[in-house]
């Protein structure tokens, strides 16, 4: 059974519809990438799964309908969300930022904190540094760490490499792969950086103007003419 089943999902900002009948299944233990240009609806899709936007259709997590459920309940159910790195608490230290994520998993605070610090050792050294003064890469690590503090079964990561140096992108990719391999965590990332997405994910979905255009494994989509033309300029 799929861990996440999305059927005919539509999302709205007021009267404007930004997702048009999106349907996809995410199998447990996989890394899945949603790729697409700016304005494709990638962040809206993750927000819709989390219950942050107004939606119609169906979103089932672990067999339970969660569409229109509050974000707090979705996190409790086991969905961790790492929004773009700007969504940190800039005047709070690294550790406090991480602890805000620990409310739904209070019995595992020490264990999760250890896991985050093992994954991103730089955060352990800078526990009291205000995140507003950190580099983009470090802020992305805090964002991922805060989502991991919720003990998720499914981790949603919104554009983890946006504006980051290639070296930092590799570090983030390595951390996500390690998490997936060692803990079996299911991960969904959204990306504009198709090379990054292909290097990390086992399955790709192409989202454009709110609609799913293509889906398949990396091998299947690598040869697609549309992908070559639209994302690699071939």
């Amino acid at each position: 059974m799929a861990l996440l089943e999305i059927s005919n999902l539509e999302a709205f900002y007021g009267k404007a519809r930004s997702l048009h009948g999106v349907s996809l299944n995410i199998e447990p233990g996989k890394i899945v990438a949603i790729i697409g240009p700016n304005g494709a609806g990638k962040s809206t899709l993750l927000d819709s799964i989390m219950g942050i936007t107004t939606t119609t259709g169906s979103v089932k997590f672990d067999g339970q309908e969660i569409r229109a459920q509050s974000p707090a309940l979705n996190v409790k159910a086991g969905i961790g969300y790492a929004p773009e790195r700007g969504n940190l608490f800039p005047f709070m230290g690294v550790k406090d930022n991480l602890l805000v994520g620990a409310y739904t998993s209070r019995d595992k605070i020490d264990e999760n904190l250890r896991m985050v610090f093992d994954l991103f050792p730089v955060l352990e050294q800078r526990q009291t540094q205000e995140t507003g003064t950190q580099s983009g890469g470090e802020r992305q690590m805090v964002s991922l760490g805060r989502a991991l503090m919720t003990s998720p079964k499914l981790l949603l990561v919104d554009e983890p490499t946006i504006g980051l140096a290639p070296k930092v992108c590799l570090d983030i990719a390595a951390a996500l792969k390690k998490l997936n391999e060692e803990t079996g965590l299911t991960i969904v990332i959204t990306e504009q950086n198709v090379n990054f997405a292909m290097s990390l994910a086992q399955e790709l979905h192409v989202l454009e103007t709110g609609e799913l255009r293509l889906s398949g494994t990396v091998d299947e989509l690598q040869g697609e003419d549309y992908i070559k033309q639209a994302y690699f300029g071939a």
Partner: protein
Amino acid sequence: MLSDPGMRKYLVGWALFGVALLLFPQVATSGTLRIFIFANFIAIFAMSWDILSGRTGYISFGHPFLIGIAAYTSAMLTYHLQTPLYFSIPLGVIATMVGGTLFFLPALRIRGTYFALVTLAFMELMYQLTQVMRPDITGGTRGLSGLPTLLTGALPNYYLSSAVMFVIAFCLWLLIRTRLGTALSAISMDEDAVKSSGLDTTKLKLFAFMVSAFVAGVGGTLYVHYLGSIAPRAIFDINFLFTILIAALLGGASTIIGPIMGAFFLTFLLEYLRPYIPGTERYFIYGSIALIVYVLEPKGLHHIIQRLYGALMRGKQA
């Protein structure tokens, strides 16, 4: 708690503050103590404002509304029904928490300027209502006077107001050091990120509001039974509102000691200016000082003192 050296340092600071409050009457005149009492009340109101607005970022312009509900409830109960103060004061606090929730809770769904304006409207609404709705009970424009006081004399009132201010400040300080306090602060920085971390921000805001209303209620009831009178213009007044706001912002919002510092600075400044500028022009002076401090250091007096202390310590080490 005591094993943490950082925490021990803070607790020593609190102990010294408590001792200073205890010993202050030994060196102060009765007049100074009366200014101090007023500063204590402003500090209580500023802390109450700060726990809601400074922490969560929901800027309330209607705080006198909360203070007024408690003050009027207790005043009317004692004036008309001769209710003993030990009943009327808790009832006033409960009335603020319940009545305030009915008005503020729907308003907490809106953000930013709209929230500020709606809460300002609450204050103005209450001002009008106390004058026109059953003036035989509220006392109308003139309000109520001859209310019973808890204590008489500057010294007992100084100790009472200082003790209440100290206990409230210490309890709020302990509260903000919990993870709940951290979450409240996070709301002001990014409410959506708090939601996506699995926290119910409506419950958190309600909690902040209830704490704020409780403190405002305690302050409001004690204030009215210190003064022995109440009038709509004394409570639901824009100058009173700005004194509370500026005390919190000038001292340093989102801190506990900041609103206390701001309250004492403002109150003593206004009182010491009185012989030279007896009219409302004094507010121009304090407004200017507040503006200068706020432009130079938006984190307030508390941060300026912290920086000076840091520089002093570094100088000693060098």
